[in-house]
């Protein structure tokens, strides 16, 4: 009897916690389809009486959401591809190529993980503006083309690569370049996927840098567009939630379908 009561209590607490934690997700999804009338009732309706898609059009008229969607996709896509490439090359050099002081070189990569980006944002702003790249795609992506995190993760998994396979490839006449792209990279897909998921999420979700480096709505990313929706239409929550839902589509997909990759990079990824 006590056991059943205990289990019931656990169920109840978990259900309550799940309700609380998931409510913002629910509200972002459902609110995006609610009519202004439903959203403006006091107290607000939690379950819509009518569903509408008008919020999406209205949000896109208020802020160039489609263009900003494209901006975010380009920026996050380029950053992800570039970080994968630079990390693969760097990790390869650290593991498979002769270096005089490998520990010292690796130390540089580790050190980059410890610098809080906000502490160097002013000179970076001055550099990018000084090059005339403010408010451009280049300005948005250039500082993020390499990654201590990606190199760190790939070095870990390259080091576990069986030496026999490496030797076999060498005996077959595969040089470094062919060994890297034909054998090593295909066999390390899970690690690469984990890095790609992390890098894409953090690039897609960036806020501080795009805020200061862009000036026009046409060049802003979706995240900045969301905050301008809030300023422009604070009386129309439906528009804001529609914008939020659009911005969430790729990241929700990654979190739901890529969770095992996320868990892989969990503790390493935290040291940004």
């Amino acid at each position, binding site marked *: 009897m006590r056991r059943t009561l205990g289990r019931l209590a656990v169920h109840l607490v978990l259900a309550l916690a799940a309700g609380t934690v998931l409510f913002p997700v629910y509200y*972002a999804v459902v609110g995006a389809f609610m009519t202004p009338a439903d959203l403006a009732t006091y107290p607000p309706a939690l379950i819509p009486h009518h569903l509408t898609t008008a919020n999406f059009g209205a949000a896109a008229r208020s802020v160039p959401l489609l263009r900003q969607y494209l901006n975010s996709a380009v920026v996050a896509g380029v950053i992800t591809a570039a970080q994968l490439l630079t990390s693969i090359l760097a990790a390869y050099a650290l593991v498979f190529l002769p270096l005089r002081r490998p520990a010292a070189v690796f130390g540089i990569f580790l050190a980059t993980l410890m610098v809080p980006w906000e*502490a160097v944002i002013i000179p970076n702003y001055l550099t990018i503006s000084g090059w005339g790249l403010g408010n451009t795609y280049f300005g948005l992506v250039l500082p993020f083309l390499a990654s201590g995190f990606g190199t760190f993760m790939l070095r870990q998994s390259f080091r576990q690569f069986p030496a026999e396979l490496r030797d076999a490839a060498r005996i077959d006449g595969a040089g470094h370049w062919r060994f890297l792209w034909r054998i090593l990279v295909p066999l390390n897909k899970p690690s690469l996927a984990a890095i790609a998921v992390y890098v894409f999420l953090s690039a897609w979700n960036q806020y501080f840098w795009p805020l200061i480096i862009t000036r026009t709505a046409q060049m802003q990313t979706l995240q900045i567009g969301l905050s301008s929706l809030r300023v422009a239409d604070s009386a129309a929550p439906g528009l804001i939630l529609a914008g939020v839902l659009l911005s969430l589509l790729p990241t929700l997909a990654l979190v739901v379908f890529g969770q095992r990759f996320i868990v892989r990079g969990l503790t390493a990824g935290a040291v940004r």
Partner: protein
Amino acid sequence: MPRPPSTTAPAARLGERALAWAFLLPSLAVFAVFLGYPLYRTFYLSAHANDLFGAPSRYVGLRHYTDLLGSAEFGRTLATTALFVLLTVVPGVIGALLLVLLLESRIRGVRVLRSAFALPFAFSVASAAVVFGVFYNPATGVLNGLLSHLGSGPVPWLTDRHHALLSVALATIWLNLGYNVLVLSAGIGSIAPEITEAARLDGASGWRLARSVTVPLLGPHLFFLVVVSTINALQSFGQINILTQGGPDGATRTLVYSVYEKAFAYGSSDFGAASAQAVVLLVVVLACTAVQFGLVERRVHYS
């Protein structure tokens, strides 16, 4: 893994060294231009006065720092930052711990629930802040609506200096919950099942099992999470900028936000004073990282 002795000829070896540097160059170049140089430059700017457009004009030594030491406003900024860290890290870690412990009880649907708790991870700081902004709306927000159902008056979530920091912290806790749950779930997953089984056979269950077996074994993960959450909280910017802009009356002006205000907000380009604050931020974050490396990484074997 020791490198096998090379059998290649010296000439080929030279080529390999060149290749190594060619492979490292793209990464090192990005780090040099966008981390190394700006690190030096932040110190440089912090020791210079600047004109109205932010260009450094003359050397002032430590003056920006002594100004900060004597400034009551900066003292308040530091206190707000510390309070914000406390308000987000403690409930964020404890809440996540309780959730994963409850998820350990063998009930149906736990896997689905664990994935569900990770969903906030998909939210960016901007999307979470904007959604909470809708919740906090004094007239149409869900929270005040709920309170009025319960017979309580409306709460000025973001417009009152005594509530604003708490409200921003609440949004932050929610935003980080997904990550915290994932980390602690991974931690529990790494505990050898024999240990918990043995404890169960000894009659431990429920809270007793959690308190004397699971939580102590989670120690390193909890510690890691506390450090990482602290560093994250110190760097929080988006939610403050979107929800309160540091207000009302400076009640949510944290260190990072203060750097932003001095350097970029309202047409301000006071890069010298802002850089001095950025150096303070750098020192605080590096101190947290040092604590982490000193206490945890010693036990984690990287090579």
